[in-house]
């Protein structure tokens, strides 16, 4: 039996020895990455083998050590990318193409990882609500008591936002703000970002904190008629910090420390910041491109001009453990 399973599974996993290929470990969902990889293979002839991993990406690469076939590690959330660097799983890439395309606050200072696309943490508001602008600080004001929907406070999208708050203020002010925000929740923190829009239409809350690209996915009708209705029940406000801009998070990638196909990995990285790929990020996923001047999808552009918070992401994600502990302290998810 064991022998049979070796043969069958080995044959299923075959195909790791051809010349022009590279191995991608991604915690970005396959549906989002595939159009980009298809375009890359079309233009270079390099085949990309992928494995989609969620939370164990770093652990898997670490356990595989120097035997790891991983060339490029792709992840969402700057904190996850910083983790890869902290664990010593990446190597620096000196590339003029990357340095020119990716702004300095959106990449690792040692060039260990690079942002490839960007999303803003925005406010969805019921479309008939009298509200045009808001700051993140305002969200803790008593006027919003019982009116806000948000996903789990421990989700990386939220811990990153809370870390950014901490980078602008301090731990004590962040705890106070989180307590206020918790009081303002209309329901227990949970669900996904799109549930925010759905729950606004469902009458559960008036505003929700969520990511920008979901609006594109909903309004475009890609998710069917129901979601179109959720997307149209809301308007999007780009909040800012009182002394800063809108909080953004990124998807990005790093070349693995033991990458057997390093050159191909760098080639893919450079392709991903090309105009062609940046356009796919904007069109297929409704993300903000990282490259200045690249086109933005009209649905996303309709939110107004995005003023990206200037603090470097590496400064923000330093606070992520402390932010997560604060979420527990105020019982945000309870």
């Amino acid at each position, binding site marked *: 039996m064991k022998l049979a*399973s070796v043969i069958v599974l080995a044959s299923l996993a075959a195909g790791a020895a051809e010349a022009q290929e590279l191995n991608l470990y991604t915690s970005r969902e396959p549906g989002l990455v595939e159009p980009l990889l298809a375009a890359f293979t079309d233009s270079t002839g390099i085949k990309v083998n992928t494995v989609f991993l969620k*939370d164990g990406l770093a652990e898997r690469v670490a356990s595989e050590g120097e035997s790891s076939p991983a060339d490029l590690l792709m992840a969402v959330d700057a904190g996850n990318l910083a983790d890869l660097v902290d664990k010593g799983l990446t190597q620096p890439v000196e590339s003029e193409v990357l340095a020119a395309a990716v702004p300095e606050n959106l990449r690792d200072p040692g060039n260990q990882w690079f942002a490839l696309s960007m999303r803003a943490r925005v406010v969805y508001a019921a479309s008939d609500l009298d509200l045009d602008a808001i700051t993140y600080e305002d969200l803790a004001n008593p006027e919003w008591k019982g009116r806000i929907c948000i996903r789990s406070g421990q989700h990386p999208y939220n811990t990153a936002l809370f870390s950014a708050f901490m980078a602008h203020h301090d731990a004590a002010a962040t705890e106070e703000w989180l307590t206020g925000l918790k009081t303002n929740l209309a329901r*227990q923190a949970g669900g996904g970002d799109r549930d925010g829009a759905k729950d606004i239409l469902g009458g559960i809350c008036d505003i929700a904190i969520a990511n920008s690209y979901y609006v594109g996915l909903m309004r475009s009708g890609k998710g069917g008629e129901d979601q179109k209705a959720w997307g149209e029940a809301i308007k999007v406000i780009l909040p800012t910090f009182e002394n800063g801009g809108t909080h953004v998070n990124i998807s990005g990638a790093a070349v693995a420390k033991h990458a057997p196909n390093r050159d191909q990995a760098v080639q893919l990285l450079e392709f991903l910041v090309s105009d062609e790929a940046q356009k796919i990020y904007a069109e297929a996923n409704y993300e903000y491109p990282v490259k200045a001047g690249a086109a933005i999808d009209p649905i996303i552009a309709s939110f107004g001009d995005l003023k990206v918070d200037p603090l470097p992401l590496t400064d923000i994600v330093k606070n*992520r453990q402390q932010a997560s502990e604060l979420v*527990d302290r105020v019982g945000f998810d309870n």
Partner: protein
Amino acid sequence: MIAGLVLVPVLALGWQAAQGSDGLWSHLARHVLPHALAQTALLMAGVGVLTAGIGTGVAWLVTAYDFPGRRMLEWALLLPLAVPTYIVAYAYLDMLHPLGPFQSAIRAVLGYDSPRDFRLPDIRSMTGAILLLGLVLYPYVYLPVRAMFLTQAANLVEVAHTLGTTRRQIFHRVALPLARPAIAVGVSLALMETLNDIGASEFLGVRSLTISVYTTWVTRSDLAGASQIALAMLVLVVALISIERWARRKQRYSVSAQRARPMARQPLAGPARWGALCLCLLPVVLGFVLPAAYLAVEAWERFRFAGLSPRLWAEAQNTFVLSALATAAVLACGLVVALAARLFPQRGMGAIHRVASLGYAMPGTILALGILIAAGGLDRWIGRTARAAFDIDPGLVLIGSGLALGYAYLARFLAISIGGVEAGLTRIPRSYDQAARTLGHGIGSTLRHVHLPLSRAALAAGGLLVFVDCMKELSATLLLRPLNFETLATHLYGEAARGTYEEAAIAALAIVAVGILPVILLARVGRAPA
């Protein structure tokens, strides 16, 4: 040896845990544990009571009485097994949402236009979680308890009947005590599933201990701390199982030396027939029909909207082949352990056997991490050795071939297969073994001629449970599978993770469809005991 295999990931976790994690416990004790422990205890108590009640109740109804639809219900009651808990949770969240069909219908009846004027309380609550998990997990109790009633109860029930006891009294005085080991096995499986569940708890907003493990690992990148909590949970589970075993240490359950046969069913008349039918239909409808119908509708809409993904067929094949291979291996190992426990009932065997069951008691992700650490270490060693000795690079022998994944299934589901095999073996009186050995049959021959034929039904039942579980398994599959290898569950997760559940409806339906096959087989096997 096999028990050792299960111990490896636990030891790997122990090693991780020993790496230390500063100030974690004081933080947890102050801010997390009080809430998480209370929620976990409440959830487990609720699910335990509900699964034991539903599982035993319907098992007794379909074995002791005859009523319209009984034959169909016998297998239909198993159907909720085919649906992963996270899928049921998602389906119900959507159906019962203020915008969903249920509340929309109520608003239409009551004459409200907008959900802002009228809506029901949110199902994202502890009560919602208990009800959902109870309705999906009760077959874990129903299955062994029904098998027990079918093969054991007849003689005792008939004796009790001759003594003038009513059916109801028989249930309380004979059947229930008789079914206790089966109920215990079933409930402990259901509870471990509950404890390990992440998807449904997350959807329903229950902050269980498992979620704390997860948060500590993922959000705070503190694997050592997560391992510490996971190991503490493991101690708790082992303690619970030991208490249960200790409580029935003096009882013996192997009964008749005669051929087992089902008891004569008492036909029901009048309203009682319909009452029995409705009682048995309720869990089937709520635990399977409604969520499956919802999925079918969603999948159909999706199919019309976007067509069928060509990858789906390949993924279904991967899922099927992988689960089948793993099931065969898990069942074989379960047989070895259970048989060894029977043949050499010294003290040591019991402990080894309990160790072998540990894998099921850990959250799947945590077990998978333990295996990843161990398998990765071995792979690196093989790689270094091969490069030094033969100057070739074999790549990742274990992880790359999927062996590590097979190993994860083994470690995880060994408990189910041991439980299944044991349930079959305990019914065979030891006098049979002794007779066979006196007649000059060796261990192997006794196994072939006595144990296997007599426990065929239980073995098949155990095997099918393992198969369905392998197929639904997500966390280990996600972490340990080779490059370019997707199963239905990983595909589904990939879509669900980016919030495009609608894309996932077809994959979810496929999981349910593939899962129904063994469930139906399971019922057929149970109906005609060897």
